[in-house]
């Protein structure tokens, strides 16, 4: 093994990020993940368990964990908190009935000590649906402005069309990179 290979491995390790994608069931977490990875999104079924994808973006190696959002799975979320650099919270903007549920789950996540250092990106998903609330409405409903403990940003997107997914991910990566790779 050459010295270059060793150097390369070290460098790679440094540029790795761990992102955790959570949200209520049917928010579109798996769809976002697959769309971001350029896969077919028409055959996705409700996530029983979790998906992990490793992909490269902007020179970073991203390990994205997409954990199922069904009620019975939410108690397992905490198993995935360790060493998370970024939290992606996905909201189904057309699901007005469960916005309160959504707010509660998010605020309890943010109290979690192990997520203390993580940057929060809120995806206001399903903007392509006619009944979807705007990202401003979601921002208010989730009381995002009260969050003082984390860097956060809300972005309206559509996982089905792919709109704004990259913009959101770029913001998240930049914010995390500014925090942990300051020497670069």
């Amino acid at each position, binding site marked *: 093994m050459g010295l*270059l*290979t060793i150097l390369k491995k070290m460098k790679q390790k440094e540029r790795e990020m761990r992102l955790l994608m959570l949200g209520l069931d049917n928010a579109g977490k798996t769809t976002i993940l697959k769309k971001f990875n350029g*896969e077919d999104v028409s055959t996705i079924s*409700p996530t029983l368990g979790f998906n992990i994808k490793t992909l490269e973006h902007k020179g970073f190696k991203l390990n994205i964990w997409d954990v199922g959002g069904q009620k019975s799975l939410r108690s397992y979320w905490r198993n995935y908190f360790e060493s998370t650099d970024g939290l992606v919270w996905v909201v189904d903007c*057309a699901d007005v009935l469960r916005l309160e549920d959504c707010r509660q789950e998010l605020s309890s996540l943010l109290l979690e000590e192990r997520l203390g250092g993580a940057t929060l990106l809120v995806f206001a998903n399903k*903007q392509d649906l*006619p009944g979807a*609330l*705007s990202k401003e409405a979601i921002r208010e409903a989730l009381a995002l402005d009260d969050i003082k403990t984390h860097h956060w940003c809300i972005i309206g997107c559509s996982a089905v069309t792919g709109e704004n997914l990259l913009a959101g991910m770029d913001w998240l990566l930049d914010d995390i990179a500014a925090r942990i790779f300051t020497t670069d």
Partner: protein
Amino acid sequence: MDATEEISQENAFYDRNGAAKIHDRIQKRQQALAEDAERRKDAKKSHSVREEKSEYFLRTFNAERAAIQELLTGCSGADRPVVTQQLEEATAKMTQLQKFLNDSVIFLSQYEIRVAQTALQKLQTSLSETREEALPKKKFAFRSRTKAAEKGSDCPPPPETAGSGVTKMDGAAVSKQADFSNISNEYLTKKSEDIQNRDVLLTHLTNCKVRLYGSPSTLHLKHINACEILCGPVATSVFVDHCSNSILAFPCQQMRTHNTTDTQVYLHVTSRAIIEDCLRVSFAPFSWSYSTLDQDFSASGLDRDRNNWSQVDDFNWLAAGTPSPNWTVIPEEDRKTTWDP
């Protein structure tokens, strides 16, 4: 005495041949050094990592690229499932290739990186073009939705403050939903134009018969008791929550069932149905029909040939191998075949 004699003899020998001897030695030494250097060079050559050569990179990269290109050209004119599979494969290969490039960046020259990056980008474009061509989006659903979305995104900025904006958005969302709520003992119907592409919400219904002719975007059923609810093809998800003693029938992409008991579902589902906190839910294939069903099916974009009605995931039953006790398949002889009253 002997020893001194020997030394003096040797000295004498040196004196005689000294110069020639040293010269000889120097030559030998030089030769050895040269051989040594040669050997080290060889060793170095055999040790350096094959993968860190730019010719190796170029060869592998080009071979992979050609393979993907071939996959893409193979897509034109092939059957839908074949195309889907090939596109999937191409996408996976593309990711691998990108990763390979990223891994190799450190020993490539700027120029090589740029060339490879451009090639990849080109490939990505042709992949999405092929996908667009081979698996076109359903025109109807796509157009109407984008139009609606554009309208939605255009209107919020005007005069109102943030607070009033929210209530207005709530109002808009509600008015866009076609609902039935708090009704008992009635026969309820909706026509296509009322529900097409909308979110339909049915709540607190008791002992009702509901017929929804058309293709809604999503269907929410909440607090339903002793009802018979039939609906045309639902483009995305159906949510069922707190439903009991009822009969449901619809085609949809996903079905998510919660807190439901003693309910029969006649289902066409292209992805999966799931149940959570449910008891005695039973499933059979969708069998209701009405005059414009075919039309609504194509409007919803659902695949008529893919029905996973019997593959139900129970989130309270994660044991693989043993079937969940919370749901069953309705035996064929017990299935409902006539629907209209």
